[in-house]
């Protein structure tokens, strides 16, 4: 107990000291990211160990907000680089001519599906994340309900009010759900499915992680979220199982890019080099099942091994081109859900 206290105080002192020390020594690189906050310190350390003299300053938010922020700042960009943000979003920025072309070192080892179509490419993906359900086993047992196994199951009346999903306008995970349903089922059936699902949704959250953390605490027992967060809450002791719906799941690439016109282009290039490097792949391998360089893939504890086989076909260009229309239609149908359900 006492040792714990002392080490905690030591940690505090270290925080204070590093705050004082980090300000002046290194070049600051402002990096916008939608990566999970849990991982940022690990990435920062790995990158800064490899390139001492460059200090990453993170601006982290959900995919939708990072995208909106970058678009809003188009005439006066604040970011030097974007790390780990949905390829669909980066494609959108690319369409606006906001990204710099750069072929990072080791590009040849990366799966071509993870790289933009330009040569040299504008964005490069390091890993992918896929939709998954977090289902709280304790709460399901309490209610005597079966664990849902498919997307179709979720629309069944017994799950009314038990499901939470992210709002696709603000969350990249929410958008890949909607985009994959539309791509898998087609326009008409896709929207019909969402109408049916909407009847069961308790609330639409701002972030893609929250449905899973809400499922973990049992606040809402079923969360439509993604596989990384599901594995994390399980390792924290949540009574949750991960379900990968059998129809196939939406996925997207965590891609990185250099913002055109940055004064720190050299440092930004180093970041992209690092993002697809073997060192980085080794870190991703601990958390993500699907990597840009498949040679490093390992099974992830708590995750089903067949997730890669269940990835739906995803056309990033189609998704980027139709994003605004899809979100508009979604907002009109479901966004004005001002009356509380139930």
């Amino acid at each position, binding site marked *: 107990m006492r040792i714990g206290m002392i080490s905690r105080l030591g940690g505090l002192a270290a925080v204070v000291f590093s705050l004082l020390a980090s300000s002046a020594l290194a070049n600051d690189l402002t990096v916008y990211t939608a990566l999970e906050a849990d991982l940022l310190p690990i990435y920062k350390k790995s990158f800064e160990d490899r390139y001492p003299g460059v200090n990453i300053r993170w601006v982290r938010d959900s995919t939708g*907000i990072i995208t909106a922020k970058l678009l*809003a700042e188009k005439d006066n960009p604040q970011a030097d680089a974007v790390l780990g943000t949905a390829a669909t979003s980066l494609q959108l920025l690319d*369409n606006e001519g906001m990204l710099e072309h750069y072929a990072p070192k080791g590009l040849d080892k990366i799966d071509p599906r993870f790289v933009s179509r330009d040569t040299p490419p504008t964005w490069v993906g390091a890993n992918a994340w896929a939709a998954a359900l977090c289902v709280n086993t304790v709460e399901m047992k309490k209610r005597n309900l079966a664990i849902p196994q498919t997307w179709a199951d979720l629309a069944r009346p017994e799950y009314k009010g038990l499901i939470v999903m992210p709002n696709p306008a603000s969350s990249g995970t929410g958008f890949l759900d909607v985009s994959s349903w539309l791509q898998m089922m087609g326009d008409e059936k896709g929207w019909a499915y969402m109408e049916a699902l909407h009847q069961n949704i308790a609330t639409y959250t701002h972030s893609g992680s929250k449905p899973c953390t809400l499922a973990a*605490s049992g*606040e*809402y027992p079923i969360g439509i979220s993604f596989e990384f967060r599901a594995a994390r809450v399980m390792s924290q002791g949540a009574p949750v199982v991960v379900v990968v719906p059998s129809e196939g799941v939406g996925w997207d690439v965590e891609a990185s890019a250099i913002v055109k016109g940055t004064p720190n282009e050299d440092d930004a290039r180093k970041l992209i080099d690092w993002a697809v490097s073997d060192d980085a792949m080794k870190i991703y391998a601990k958390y993500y099942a699907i990597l840009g360089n498949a040679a490093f893939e390992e099974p992830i504890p708590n995750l089903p091994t067949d997730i890669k086989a269940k990835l739906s076909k995803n056309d990033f260009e189609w998704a980027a081109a139709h994003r605004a229309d899809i979100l508009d239609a979604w907002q009109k149908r479901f966004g004005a859900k*001002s009356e509380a359900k139930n």
Partner: protein
Amino acid sequence: MSDAVLGAAAIARAPAIRAKVGRDDRLMLVFTLVIGLYLVVSLALPILFMLWKSTEVRAFAYSAVEMQVDTGQGPTSVGTLADVAGKLGLLSDVDQARRANSLTAAQLFPKRAFDGAPLKSVRMRFSGGSADGRLDLSGKPVEAGQWAEVPAQDLRRLVLRAGTQRSLANYAAYFSNPALTQSIANSLAVSLITTAIVVLLAFGFAYGLSRTMMPLKGLFRTIAMVPILVPSLLAGISLVYLFGNQGLLKDLMFGARIYGAGGIVAGCVFFTFPHAFLIISTALAVSDARLYEAARVLRTTPRRTFFTVTLPGARYGLISAAFVVFTLTITEFGVPKVVGGDFNMLAVDIYKQVVGQQNFAMGAVVSVILLIPAVVAFFVDRTVTARQVALLTARAVPYAPQPNRPLDWAAFAFCSVVAGLLLLVVGVSQFAALVKFWPYDLSLSFQHYAFEGVDGGGWGSYFNSLQLALYTAIIGTLVVLVGGYIVEKGRGFVAARTGLHFLAMLPMAIPGLVLGLSYIFFFNDRSNPFNFLYGTMAILVVSTITHFYTVSHLTALTALKAMDREFEAVAASLKQPVTRMFTRVTLPVCLPTGLDIAAYYFVNALTTVSAVVFLYAPTTTLAAVAALNMDDAGQIQPAAAMCMLIFYTNLAARGVHAVLTRVLASTQAWRAR
């Protein structure tokens, strides 16, 4: 006769006798101008700028763009974009720009075909002014009147940028969107219900404390102030842990949900309670015992006395409290954000528009809508309280409560319940912050206080907040004291001083989110000479000082009013400069008040979210905002931990304040006779 005429002319020519403008007056004028300039730059200009911006509409100048397409027969004119907009599936000029500020040729021809024929190339020519937008080829602007051509495979290199118009289209868009306008009714309903509940509760509580002989009054008074020391979103978090689907007391909900109007009302009751209590207890504290004596002599029933003496005596306090609670609730953002579910309120709409969709223009429109009830409440309150006449005349006898067992115990029971609920809200958050994994592993741990791997910036944000609180307390107190001194004790420059006072009263009516949004518009504008402030700690300090200016200013005025004007007269006749007067007499006399203002600023700088949530930068993240962001990402236990950290810091600050006040009391011996 001619003499007389001459005399009159001579008198007319003689210079009028005017007070000589001395060094002191010039100094005072300089200070008046400095403080006035501060308030103009930090308040008036940003708000006006935001009003102006809310009428700015982005639009594509379709008719200024000529287009030619080549489908194999050479470039063929298809007229302007306005001619083919319908054919190409474009929305109206404004709607299209609302979707995105730019339009690429690839979006015009997604199939790379025109009328079914595959495209070879597309040419565009833009002939408009800079307000109409721009045409870009490969990221570089094309000169107006020049043709720009792209081959079919490079269509997205040709980009049309939207221009700006000035109209009320944003307001029209707002009022045609029922999802947004619903918030007006929602906000009004929630605010009215909250106001009714809080005024009743606070009146009962204050009545117990000032009109009965119940025990433990000091303790109750302290507990009543607890909600001021925590960010309002703590109330939302605690409500989730109490009444959420996994809440400790969820059985009391009988199946109803805490997420929605009910939760918002409950949370707002919690955090507005101390404000109403303070105002009402001040009103109840001053009353004339002679009125009660008269009532007793006339054998009036206690009930009748209550309705004819007590209530009328406190009516201005009640009205004032009602307006304050109404304004606080309608502009509140933390509670509905956490516990509102799908029940939208105006303040949350501003946040969603600005942060969620980066739609600043619509954020400005909602801000203007939100300003209306806040400003109306402010002016009505001012007018009503201005009519208040002093209850406590020189001949009044202060009322002293007499023992009355049933009443005392009833009051004690009531106050115990209210105080118990207040403590319960804070206690639950503390409990949630300390358990390992809610609700499945309730063993205790400090792990959530490490803030590792969570959003918001962790301990760094906490230290930033401390910095902000200290700067705000020191600088804010100085600015407010000098400003108050000028308004209250200044000579001459009546117009300037009245203007200053008006500006100092305004922040009360400006919701924090609105102030923050106006700062984005004003300080992020590149042509603004103060642009360098954007993204720094300084802008956070400025916004916090301004946001909480009014209450500090009124506190300073009250203290200064208590100082006889003769001090100044004596100092002037002794030819003492005003600076010496200020430092030797005014400041020492005002020290206890200065300390109160500093404590007020410190506590509010730590708990505020609304005034700073749009303004923090990667290096200046703040604790209360971090709690908000953690809650957003579902890291609710760490969010509770951060709120409690703020609570203990504020508790310590209040402790320091109490000790300093006591120490100061020894220097204030002159106050006693």
